[in-house]
């Protein structure tokens, strides 16, 4: 059947837009729509006309679970911070972008490398030391910065999982975002690749106890205490307590 004869197309487009086109005829027309701009245009015109009818529909505020579910399905769990350590790790590993076992290995290697006490000084314990850990992803959701510091330590170890482009004369500034929504405060400057140790202004416990997220913005110079991010964050992620 030639769907693109003007009269037939008009009939199918308006029935599709209204919803009265049903069953296999609807599915067939959807396939046509994907490949025929003229059909998409005809449907779009009818959808525009009909969308005015939606104006009087009383709004209904969805429950929080709808957005939380979206975040979980698309960006991993925002509730990870409230779970135990093992569930937290499994939550991290379920991030699609991390890619399964490889990512698990990467995370373990990173943690062991920067927390040598795990295998050297604390041989009796199978658990990771109490730490704050952040995994920052870029706009595409690719894990980019792994940041960790011991709960009562004053140094944060930062590892770049992929390089970050930092324009000449600028720095990548790491910020901490308190969970109560108050202003972000600067933590330190991170390199564009490799790894670094960032000296903290206080112990992790004092700085990060109420922090739910970490983020990185590109700044002209390292931010001073009390400074604010000048632009959008290029990386961000949850900051969680590992205990």
């Amino acid at each position, binding site marked *: 059947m030639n769907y693109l004869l003007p009269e037939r197309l008009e009939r199918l487009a308006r029935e599709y837009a209204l919803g009265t086109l049903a069953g296999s005829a609807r599915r067939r027309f959807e396939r046509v729509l994907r490949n025929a701009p003229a059909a998409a245009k005809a449907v779009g015109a009818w959808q525009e006309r009909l969308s005015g009818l939606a104006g009087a*529909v009383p709004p*209904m505020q969805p429950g929080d679970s709808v957005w939380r579910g979206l975040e979980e399905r698309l960006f991993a769990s925002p509730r990870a911070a409230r779970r135990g350590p093992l569930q937290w790790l499994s939550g991290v590993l379920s991030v699609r972008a991390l890619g399964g076992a490889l990512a698990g290995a990467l995370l373990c290697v990173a943690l062991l490398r920067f927390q040598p006490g795990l295998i050297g000084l604390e041989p009796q314990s199978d658990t990771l030391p109490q730490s704050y850990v952040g995994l920052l992803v870029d706009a595409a959701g690719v894990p980019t910065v792994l940041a960790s510091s011991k709960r009562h330590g004053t140094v944060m170890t930062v590892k770049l999982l992929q390089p970050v482009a930092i324009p000449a004369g600028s720095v990548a500034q790491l910020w901490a975002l308190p969970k109560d929504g108050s202003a972000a405060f600067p933590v330190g400057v991170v390199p564009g690749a490799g790894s670094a140790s960032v000296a903290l202004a206080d112990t992790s416990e004092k700085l990060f106890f109420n922090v739910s997220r970490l983020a990185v913005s590109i700044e002209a110079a390292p931010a001073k205490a009390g400074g604010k991010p000048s632009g959008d964050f290029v990386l961000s992620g949850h900051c969680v307590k590992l205990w």
Partner: protein
Amino acid sequence: MPSNEDLAALLPRVALGDRAAFEGVYRATCAHLLGVAFRILNSRERAEEVLQEAFMNVWHGAGGFDASVAGPMTWLINVVRNKAIDALRSGRAERASTSAFDEEALAVAADAMQQPQALLERSLATLRIRDCLGDLGAPQRQALALAYYRGMVHTEIAETLGAPLGTVKTWVRRGLDRLKACLDAAGLRADSLA
């Protein structure tokens, strides 16, 4: 209701994976879109499921939004409506096969004729085309309202209104023709008021 300009700026950013833009689109439109899904499904739980599925599509499919085909709010409404219509019809098929007693379906039936018509009248008044559509008979308006707000197909409308199938098809077609003529006469892009 968010402005189409705001949404038109946000959707291309969503296509690039901007999560803040995605949340902006969600927060600005979720209440209106849940209302649309709820009218069709008559169940908050199912409507919320559909809303979530629709926004999964928005995240993955925002690159398919083409402002030259339809406005952003129109695009979002139709992502949700199509999901709701699919859910409604697959749910009906399941119910038919299990022939379970369904209080929800009865509730929809009881309310089927009144509410959609009231919504249609209010929308037409907002669009300032109520008078223009005034010469359209009550059955034509009812048929149009049941199809749009309830996601009913011709056979269901015929059953609800107790009219022959062929007659209902004509009513719906005339309703749409008249709507188009009135919108054209009013010089409105319906989307601008959605």
